[in-house]
């Protein structure tokens, strides 16, 4: 067929598109599991970072991350009941991906959906660190995620054994504005979360408390520092934490765990 023939132009373009998309698709599908495994390793790197098992700024090799991860007890928890679901292996179950599984996900009622997630999994991974000598709970690490300025922000928050004081916070996946929103990765800002308390009288979440309330003396403990210029991002973090520690988040699990660790 002559090159000037417009039908040939269409044929050439369609054939190119077909062959190229095939090439790219086969590549992506074939290598996706390996990339996913590395992403999981990176997630566990963030987990280990605030576990208290190592210095927070330590640069760990992949095998060190795996070794420290094995000292953490993972569980799959049903958010509605707060009980552990033994049907799933907590080290392989991916509570974050489960949100795409129609059998495992559920819609978040809009009055609770502070983190703008719309749907979330009914089951989630939680992580507990027990003292090997006396079996007491040392720290608990819970996933937190929500809609940020440009995409979802994923992180972990670590709580001391009173299940109220923050021991650490970290984010391992975010696409916030470079130089501004991504200051949530700044270790100084993340450190400012340490020692803050999420709840007053066990179940009332007072994060970012109202200045006019009678609890005003306690507010310093229940507030987090903002980052100037990063209002949307920091509001997203605040909303995320309020969602996950609110009535549609970990509240039932916390009740169950409190009973478990009481002597």
């Amino acid at each position, binding site marked *: 067929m002559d*090159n*000037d*023939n*417009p039908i*040939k*132009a269409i044929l*050439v*373009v369609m054939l*190119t*598109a077909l062959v*190229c998309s095939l*090439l*790219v698709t086969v*590549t*992506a599908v074939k*290598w996706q599991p*390996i*990339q996913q495994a*590395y992403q999981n390793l990176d997630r566990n790197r963030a987990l280990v970072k605030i576990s208290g098992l190592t210095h927070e700024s330590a640069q760990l090799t992949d095998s060190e991350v795996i070794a420290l991860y094995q000292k953490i007890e993972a569980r799959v928890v049903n958010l509605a009941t707060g009980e552990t679901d033994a049907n799933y292996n907590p080290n392989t179950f991916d509570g974050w991906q489960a949100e795409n599984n129609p059998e495992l996900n559920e819609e978040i009622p809009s009055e609770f959906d502070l983190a703008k997630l719309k749907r979330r999994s009914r089951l989630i991974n939680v992580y507990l660190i027990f003292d090997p000598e006396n079996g007491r709970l040392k720290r608990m690490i819970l996933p937190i995620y929500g809609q940020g300025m440009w995409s979802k922000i994923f992180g972990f928050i670590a709580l001391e054994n009173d299940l109220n004081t923050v021991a650490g916070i970290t984010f391992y996946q975010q696409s916030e504005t470079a130089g501004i929103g991504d200051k949530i990765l700044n270790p100084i800002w993340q450190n400012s979360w340490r020692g803050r308390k999420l709840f007053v009288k066990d179940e009332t979440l007072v994060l970012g408390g109202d200045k006019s309330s009678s609890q005003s003396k306690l507010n310093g403990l229940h507030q987090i520092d903002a980052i100037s210029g990063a209002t949307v991002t920091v509001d997203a973090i605040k909303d995320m934490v309020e969602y996950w520690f609110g009535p549609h988040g970990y509240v039932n699990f916390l009740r169950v765990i409190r009973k478990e660790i009481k002597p």
Partner: protein
Amino acid sequence: MNRRIRDTILNPLINENPITLQVLGICSALAITNSLYSALIMSLALILVLAFSNVTISLIRHHLPDSVRIIVQITVIASGVIVVDEWIKTFLPETARTLSVFVGLIVTNCIVLGRAEAFAAHNKVGYSFLDGVGNGLGYSLVLVFVAIIRELLGTGSLLNVKIFPTTTEGGWFDPNALMLLPPSAFFIIGFLIWGIRSWKTEQVEPAEFKQLLISDEDFD
């Protein structure tokens, strides 16, 4: 070796280097040359993409209608870049984080489309492959040269091997912080071009305008 084969590979190294003579593909040369390791991986990625794109476009060169020629070339280049980028993300995930968007930006690297249009669209597959590899090597030469200078003078080490002991470790070498920023690559490439054109004066471009000497007397 056949003279034409030798010229196709060797010319792009110095005589017709894509960066220093044709001044193409500067962006990635500035961005990732602060580390020799990144420069080497980036160079390898570009050689692979160039070879793949040149070969593919040469294979279909007789069947590319003018109206869609550029679009088809870009599609082929983009697919090659995606495959290379995915390979790096899969097997070298740490490097992928450092190189971030720059492997993907090979699609916009003028060298690739430039060679496709200038060479692969008019030459046989074998020579197109050699031209791709040759230009990739020319690009690599410049990148490695710049990266060695920047990493050595900016950190005192190369490929994580300490060469100059820095003052923070009790040594004598005070690292030059400018070397870690992109403008330093600009200066180094500029000096490199100056050096090469002083050695090979045939590369110096003729002036675009003739300079006229005007004296005050002309205005009386």
